[in-house]
């Protein structure tokens, strides 16, 4: 299917146990997984199954208790914090359920300042920010602050921020969680468009309707891989209600 070279994220027998004082909380029990370039992969599973923990480890935000992780060929589970940061800076874009935009900055500045932090010159960063916002359909909202934007628009700013540095991997946790059905779908379309032969998108979600945008669905249950399957592209809103599933945290 895909060649070895195009694996952008890879985990070998990753285990994670949180130490909560004297309490040991085992969360991941040996997860082995590859995420390929050219694909939009969904990571699904019940609440508490360890999805967030897994993507945190895959992106070097958390260290596994054991096992090995590679991000774009770099063995991040073995690198020092500074080196892991440098890999993230170069290769990763993040999107969150809560957007995490700076309220004082305009849409353009929110995108631009991250590029500046990545070391880009101001002029170049501004141009890239404007391009990225244009691509997510916010060309006319550049000067708006998050407080003046709708949830969907804010999430599009966050996507522009993730896209602007042209990372090879974009990771999102519940990126549509705070959005209504229609807005959620438009956000996914933008992410879908970002998948090229050299980049990968990995999205954690509870929403089966998003499967229609996916190339692959990985399911986690109790810290273990329960399924690795092709997406079911026929989920519709009449069969499945996003909110209900989120409230229960379980699939119907």
């Amino acid at each position, binding site marked *: 299917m895909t060649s070895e070279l195009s694996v952008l994220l890879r985990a070998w027998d990753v285990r994670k146990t949180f130490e909560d004082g004297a309490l040991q909380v085992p969360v991941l029990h040996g997860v082995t997984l590859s995420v390929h370039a050219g694909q939009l992969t969904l990571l699904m599973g019940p609440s508490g199954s360890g999805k967030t923990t897994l993507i*945190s480890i895959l992106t070097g935000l958390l260290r596994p208790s054991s096992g090995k992780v590679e991000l774009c060929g770099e063995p991040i589970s073995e690198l020092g914090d500074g080196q892991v940061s*440098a*890999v993230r800076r170069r290769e990763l*874009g*993040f999107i*969150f359920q809560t957007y995490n*935009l*700076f309220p*004082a*900055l305009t849409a353009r500045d929110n995108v631009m300042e991250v590029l500046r932090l990545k070391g880009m010159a101001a002029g170049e960063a501004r141009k890239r920010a404007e391009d990225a916002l244009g691509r997510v359909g916010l060309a006319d909202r550049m000067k708006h602050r998050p407080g003046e934007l709708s949830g969907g628009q804010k999430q599009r700013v966050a996507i522009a921020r993730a896209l602007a540095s042209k990372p090879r991997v974009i990771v999102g946790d519940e990126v549509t969680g705070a959005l209504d059905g229609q807005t959620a779908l438009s956000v996914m379309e933008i992410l879908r468009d970002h998948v090229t032969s050299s980049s990968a998108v990995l999205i954690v979600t509870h929403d089966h309707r998003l499967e229609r945008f996916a190339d692959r669905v990985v399911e986690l249950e109790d810290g273990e891989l329960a399924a690795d399957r092709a997406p079911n592209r026929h989920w519709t809103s009449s069969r499945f209600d996003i909110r209900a599933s989120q409230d229960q945290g379980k699939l119907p």
Partner: protein
Amino acid sequence: MRRIALLSLIHDRSKLVASIAGVTFAAVLVLLQMGVYAGFLTISSATITHMGGDVWVMPRGTEVLDSVEILSSGTRSAVGAHPCVSDVRPLVFVWSFIRKAGGTRDSVRVVGVERGRGPIMPWELERGLPSDLEGPGRVAVDAFDLGKLQIQGDPIGARLDIGGQRAEIAGITQGVRSFTLLPFVFTNIRDARRMAGLGDGEANYWVVDLKDPACAEQVMGDIQRNPQLMAVRREDFVTMTQNYWIGGSGVGPALGFSALLGLIVGVVVVGQTLYTMTKDYERELATLKALGATSWELVRFVGWQAGFLALIGSTLGSVIAFMTTGAAAAGGLTIVLSSSVMAVGLGAVILMCVAASFMSIRKVLKLQAAEVFK
């Protein structure tokens, strides 16, 4: 990071205003306390500074300018005979009584010098000329003391009774005040001696100008062979006098304590603002960290905000302190905002802002990028 930090700070108006007020308050308090202190130092030794000279000769055991020991005329010629001495100027500096219009008596400080030798005294004449004090009984008093001395109407020509001698105001000084608040009365050397009850040729100090400052040590040694006399370098006498009044008075610690209170209030207000800023933006900062920003870059979020508050607060504080100094001078209080006072005061305010950043920097350094998904 500068834009993120400053725009975020400015975005939150109420916090911004509160913290600028905090820094400004601290800056004003620190500068004014230090300025008052520097003012006390300046005032307590102003007469010495303005008289100048290389070496001051005084009766042995003198601790402070305001002592009232007397030097005989013979010692003047003895000092003047030294080959390295170019001039010996007498200074009468002694307290006396004034009888006020209402009939009550009050104390004054009579200052007399020989005209035409050394710097002009008094040093700030608002009305009249130094030569106007040469006539018999002619004196200069300070504009600020007129009320205290119960002099009404145009003071020039007003009659006074000082030390039982008739006197007439011929000059008005401006801001020439003593640390003890005793009104200064400047006059010629003859009248000063009479008002103070000194004999002909006597004085309280011989102010010695040297031909070559390098021979100060030798001159002082020679003078001190007379067991009645003490010779002190002018700078040392300034320090002795300042230490006597300021060091012994507890005024330094009192002013220092107020300045410290200002700094503490400043640390709390600024620290509070910086900390809540960091806390409010925890998620966004963690996001930057997840995207690869280093801890050092996140520390700059706090650093820029602290620096900005320090800059604005110090500037506003300095302006207010200078305005206060003008108003205080009109009220008779000397506040000296010298360059060293400004440097030390604003340095303290900057240190205060650094101290205030401490908690936030700690928080930023402990920030886990993994928090972004919480």
